């Protein structure tokens, strides 16, 4: 009486007619083994928890300050199981918002696969939209780019350059940024 396991996932394969028997002193029985297989497959395909993380919105010279009711929010989920899908948003808030100075960036919830260090500068991993509350014409679609040197996320406006306190427009009260990125981690 015994079992074998598959090469990659380690799924338990029943071994002959005795495998359907219920628990024995030296054998869990196929019902129990099947449960183990289900859990293993489930955990490999997707982490069923949508996780939250704290989005730190910073700038290369002076960090911005959120105004009244301003907030940042980050959510992420793992799947397959090394890939991470991250959703983030920033609301600058009202009175009290200060734009800061320099290039804007945000943090990621989980470390990107260190193999990305091979990139010489940055690599695009997602998209974002910037909504200018005071002028629709200066709203923009951003490219979300990862910098291996800093392990942070930067943004390129649709007309080029890097999102900062002046490009594509100086952010003001009640402006919003929302986007997503998709990237691999080193370990599941």
């Amino acid at each position, binding site marked *: 009486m015994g079992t074998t396991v598959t090469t990659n996932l380690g*799924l338990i*394969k029943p071994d002959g007619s005795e495998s*359907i028997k219920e628990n024995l002193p030296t054998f869990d029985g196929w019902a129990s083994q099947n449960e183990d297989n289900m859990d293993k497959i489930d955990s490999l395909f997707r982490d069923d928890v949508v996780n939250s993380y704290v989005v730190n919105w910073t700038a290369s010279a002076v960090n911005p300050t959120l105004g009244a009711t301003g907030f940042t929010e980050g959510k992420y989920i793992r799947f397959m199981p090394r890939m991470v899908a991250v959703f983030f948003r920033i609301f600058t808030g009202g009175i009290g918002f200060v734009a800061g100075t320099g290039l804007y960036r945000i943090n990621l919830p989980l470390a990107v696969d260190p193999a990305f260090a091979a990139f010489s500068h*940055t690599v695009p991993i*997602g998209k974002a939209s910037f909504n200018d509350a005071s002028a629709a014409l200066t709203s923009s679609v951003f490219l979300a780019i990862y910098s291996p040197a800093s392990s942070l996320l930067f943004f390129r406006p649709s007309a080029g350059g890097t999102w900062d306190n002046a490009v594509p427009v100086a952010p003001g009260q009640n402006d919003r940024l929302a986007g997503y990125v998709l990237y691999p981690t080193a370990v599941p």
Partner: protein
Amino acid sequence: MVLNLQTPVGNNFLKDWPGQNAVNCDLIDDYAGPCLTSHPIQTYTPALTASTANPVLGTSSTLVGMYYEIFDQIYTWGEFRFGTAASIGSGIYEISLPFRAKSLVGQGPSSSFTSPPSVGNAVVFDESIDSGRQPALTVLRNLDKLSFLVRMGTAGASRAVSHNIPIVWTGAPSPADGVMWSARYQREP
């Protein structure tokens, strides 16, 4: 993709079920391969070509290609940057895929969707000035290659990245100008 997992039927299914389950375990395992457990991110060497005359990257250039394979879904990232003594070639720039794509969705004479399918994002990287680093769209040029589209001026049109669009490519100081990209597509078979 169909796994053809066995479903027990008939009066004697309890007798047959362990054997069928063993087959199912192998089918699932074979399909998953090592990607879900032990497969690290993979590297490959992309080929940079052009529709008329191929460019030459030059000395101290960069050429990076990576992919992560989940079943038949390929997530790929890469970059090229010209170095000194580079030749920019002529025509639309093309980058080889790590695996042949399964199909060009909607592309063909019978389809109303004749534009190359968008599969990711890219950055045209102007080494000399940050404002010249502009977003681009990564598209499937054919089953084996990517190409890139950029927004042109204020007219809203887009055109393929080539030897003279959207910047004048230079290779110094090396590594200099180039493209960084990401893409996701379904591979053969």
